[in-house]
């Protein structure tokens, strides 16, 4: 079927061969043609030599999730050729390097195979083994550009921007692209029936990954202390923070920095540093992933009980244990919500895309300081490391950051006596004093049992008084956290509910289901504890399909624990194979449940 701006290209290569730049070039050039595009990177936990794939979905509709089909496969890796061929949707195309013959048995009647002698052409045109490998991967950009009718001028401009400092690379890259482009023009019917055409769908949008947006958000929030231990897939959050700070937080005259990034010895130390800095009144944060959360748990419980603000960015990967470090999941939500021993629970924020990573990274500091408690932003590998096309990030300068209830030296002087854990305002949030301000504000911060006045206690009533007051604070959190994104019509009796990176696939699934006359209301939860809006949404429906990316239906359990939701109407659609969610999974899941007799 011929289509315009609805095509999926998947490229299979070997990692460490420069394919990332080639794929980025391809994606960006389509974006520059004004055509919405989605890029997903499926990479191994390895530096060089293993199979890696990049999937570019051209979507005139502007959908945000990965597709559930492959129209064009660029099979550059002989190692994965057979499975790559098998993955092509019927009627699709496969491009391969025809320098070497492929096995006769590897054929499919319903797929058109296009051989391009990429290695031979590059070997004839370039010198040196490394250059030949790199250029071979750039050359396939030319082939795809010819087949999809991507504007070569745009590609040239992009190369000029990328290699502004190394102009000799522009010519060699362009030469390689032309090799592929011209070969395709001469040997195949170009363009293919599925092609790309310029449109006006990317205005005021950017292509950015969530970790970059998160690091940028932390800088805009005024974070000054970042402590971390490197872990995939969160590492690029701190890289981004450091890069932006190096640009904007270094005094041009003295060279002095107004930020402090500390690479800790482990995650236990990273969170300890965050707490020390936050206790001192600085905005501090740590990016991590599941194994890091496990290590941080003791301190997270400390911060909950001693009431210290902390911002933790959890870029979730596939667990349990080491799991699959370069695959995505939402399987840490329960362990983050209730991290640490004893009665503890923590504020979670669920960004859906990089745009929301930017805004939520900022508001995470506001909530942490307002509530004097750890706030964990639950990103994931799909959001964090993939390139998403999102509306321009916006920063509202008129919005005043919330520093919470921090007493000034003057306020302390006016007080008869300062008591750290007294609920003066009835919202469960006490006033805090910072070290180095006024000795009247001094107190001994401790994780051991304490009274409302801050003193040590082993007295049952005095202990219980404080932990009960923490529940009052929990209810305050419920009121002030970001509301869910809800689309509701009273005519629909079934609802679809998700968090975070499930948003794109669910939005698309709703459209597809509507085409089949199945209308679902929608709720995207943005924070834990759950607000009254979420409670009402569940109550309003006979059935709520909960889409989450873990095996054990953790979100569903949290509805039962936190807002006493009726479990009989909560139906789970669980996706946990490590790949980003796609709409087809949601559609099929809903249809299956309907077939089983569930109302919709």
């Amino acid at each position, binding site marked *: 079927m011929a289509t315009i701006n609805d095509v999926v290209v998947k490229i299979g290569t070997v990692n460490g061969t420069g394919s990332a730049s080639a794929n980025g070039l391809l994606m960006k050039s389509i974006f520059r043609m004004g055509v919405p595009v989605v890029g997903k990177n499926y990479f191994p936990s390895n530096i060089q030599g293993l199979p890696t794939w990049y999937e570019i979905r051209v979507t005139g509709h502007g959908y945000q999730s990965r597709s559930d089909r492959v129209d064009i496969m660029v099979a550059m890796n002989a190692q994965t050729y057979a499975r790559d061929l098998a993955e092509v949707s019927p009627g699709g195309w496969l491009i391969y390097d025809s320098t070497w013959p492929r096995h006769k048995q590897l054929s499919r009647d319903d797929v058109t195979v296009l051989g391009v002698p990429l290695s031979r052409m590059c070997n004839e045109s370039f010198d040196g083994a490394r250059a030949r490998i790199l250029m071979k991967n750039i050359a396939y950009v030319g082939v795809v550009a010819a087949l999809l009718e991507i504007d070569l001028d745009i590609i040239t401009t992009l190369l000029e921007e990328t290699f502004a400092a190394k102009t000799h690379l522009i010519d060699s890259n362009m030469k390689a692209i032309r090799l592929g482009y011209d070969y395709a023009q001469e040997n195949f019917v170009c363009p293919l029936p599925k092609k790309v055409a310029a449109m006006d769908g990317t205005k005021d949008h950017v292509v950015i990954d969530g970790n970059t947006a998160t690091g940028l958000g932390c800088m805009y929030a005024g974070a*000054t202390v970042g402590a971390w231990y490197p872990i995939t897939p969160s590492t690029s959050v701190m890289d981004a923070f450091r890069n932006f700070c190096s640009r904007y937080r270094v005094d041009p005259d003295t060279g002095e920095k107004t930020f402090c990034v500390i690479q800790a010895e482990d995650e236990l130390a990273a969170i300890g540093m965050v707490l020390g800095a936050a206790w001192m009144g600085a905005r501090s944060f740590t990016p991590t992933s599941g194994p890091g959360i496990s290590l941080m748990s003791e301190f997270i419980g400390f911060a909950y009980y001693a009431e210290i603000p902390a911002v933790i960015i959890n870029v979730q990967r596939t667990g349990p244990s080491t799991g699959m470090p370069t695959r995505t999941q939402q399987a840490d939500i329960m362990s983050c919500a209730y991290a640490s021993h004893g009665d503890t629970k923590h504020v979670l924020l669920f960004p859906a895309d990089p745009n929301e990573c930017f805004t939520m990274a900022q508001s995470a500091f506001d909530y942490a300081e307002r509530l004097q408690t750890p706030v964990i932003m639950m990103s994931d590998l799909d959001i964090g490391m993939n390139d998403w096309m999102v509306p321009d990030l916006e920063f509202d300068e008129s919005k005043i950051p919330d520093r919470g209830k921090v007493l000034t030296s003057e306020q302390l002087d006016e007080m008869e006596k300062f008591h750290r854990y007294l609920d003066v305002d009835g919202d469960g949030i006490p006033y805090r004093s910072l070290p180095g301000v006024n000795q009247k504000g001094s107190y001994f911060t*401790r994780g051991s049992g304490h009274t409302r006045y801050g003193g040590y206690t082993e007295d049952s009533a005095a202990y219980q008084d404080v932990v009960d007051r923490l529940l009052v604070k929990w209810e305050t959190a419920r009121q002030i956290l970001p509301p869910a994104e809800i689309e509701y019509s009273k005519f629909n009796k079934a609802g679809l509910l998700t968090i975070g990176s499930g948003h794109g696939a669910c939005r698309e699934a709703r459209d597809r289901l509507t085409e089949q006359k199945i209308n679902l209301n929608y709720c995207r939860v943005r924070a834990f504890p759950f607000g009254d809006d979420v409670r009402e949404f569940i109550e309003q429906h006979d059935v709520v399909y909960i889409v989450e990316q873990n095996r054990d239906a953790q979100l569903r359990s949290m509805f039962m624990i936190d807002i006493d939701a009726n479990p009989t109407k909560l139906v789970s659609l669980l996706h946990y194979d490590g790949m980003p969610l796609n709409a087809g999974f949601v559609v099929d899941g809903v249809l299956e449940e309907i077939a089983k007799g569930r109302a919709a």
Partner: protein
Amino acid sequence: MSYIAKPKVAHPKMPRNKLGLTARDYEGVVSTLCAGCGHDSVTAAIVEAVFELDIEPHMLAKMSGIGCSSKTPAYFVSGAHGFNSVHGRMPSVTTGANAANRDLMYIGVSGDGDSLSIGAGQFMHAIRRNLNMCYIIENNGVYGLTKGQFSASADIGSKPKKGEPNQQEPIDPVSTAIALGATYIARSFSGDREHLVPLIQGALRHDGFALVDVISPCVTFNDHVGSTKSYAHTREFYHRVVDADFVPPAEEIKVKYAQGEAMPVELHDGSKIVLRKIEEQYDPTSRATAFQYLRDRFNQGEITTGLLYIDESRKEMHEIMGNTQTPLCQLPLDSLHPGSGELKKILDQYR
């Protein structure tokens, strides 16, 4: 354990420091440790040290982990904020606090369990960063709160109250700190306050990581015959090699020392620490010879004390990083981002 506030009544004739405060103003709540605990003597030495240094109470931050030693920050300088963190993690919390506010003076109190077992990693990495703090280890060779198990600093052959003598090699914080490159390393004894106070003062004024390892006997679980961390054993095998006098800035060195014997070392704030060599061949500025001397004496069963190593030339954490002089926690948030206009320019790189 209960929490008892001390009455703050001072005798009118009590000496006052430059801030007009008496030593009482540097006390904390009443200690709940066992009567005769070495840690209480260390607390008294800390009170004396900070009183004499004229430190404003709120400009001190008291940091600790978990254990008997880590309770003690409640017992001194109640006008200072304290942070009683989790077991073995005092160094990381202090690192973060110091990163946020370089204007405060940091005193960390830890124990041999807290620093040499569960927190050995954090202890080492604080040294590696040359974190500007005074790090006191109240070292008694046992776990007190869990009733007398050996700690990692227990010597080979040291006897417990019940059971077999220790057979595992001890971890010595002083030689560990020398190996790791700590820039101020001292050891003293809780029973020798005159010796201990100036070592703490020098440690507080030193610009970088300062370790004060204090043999501080546990009267309940490790003060019997056969223990190498008892009062009696420590007194017998205690070997002072270098004593130290702390001299505040602009105060002349009043005491005259014979040439070759006294060695004044100027600290960054202009104060001086004057080393008095008791053992002539000992050189507290050479890591290699200090290490060899300490190990030799250790093998002979001696506890070498004094200001054992000092290096004022190394940069502390903030200087290494090139951070601004203003405490990071005091920077207004709106000075820390380039605004919405610049955001548009940043975004243009992502189109």
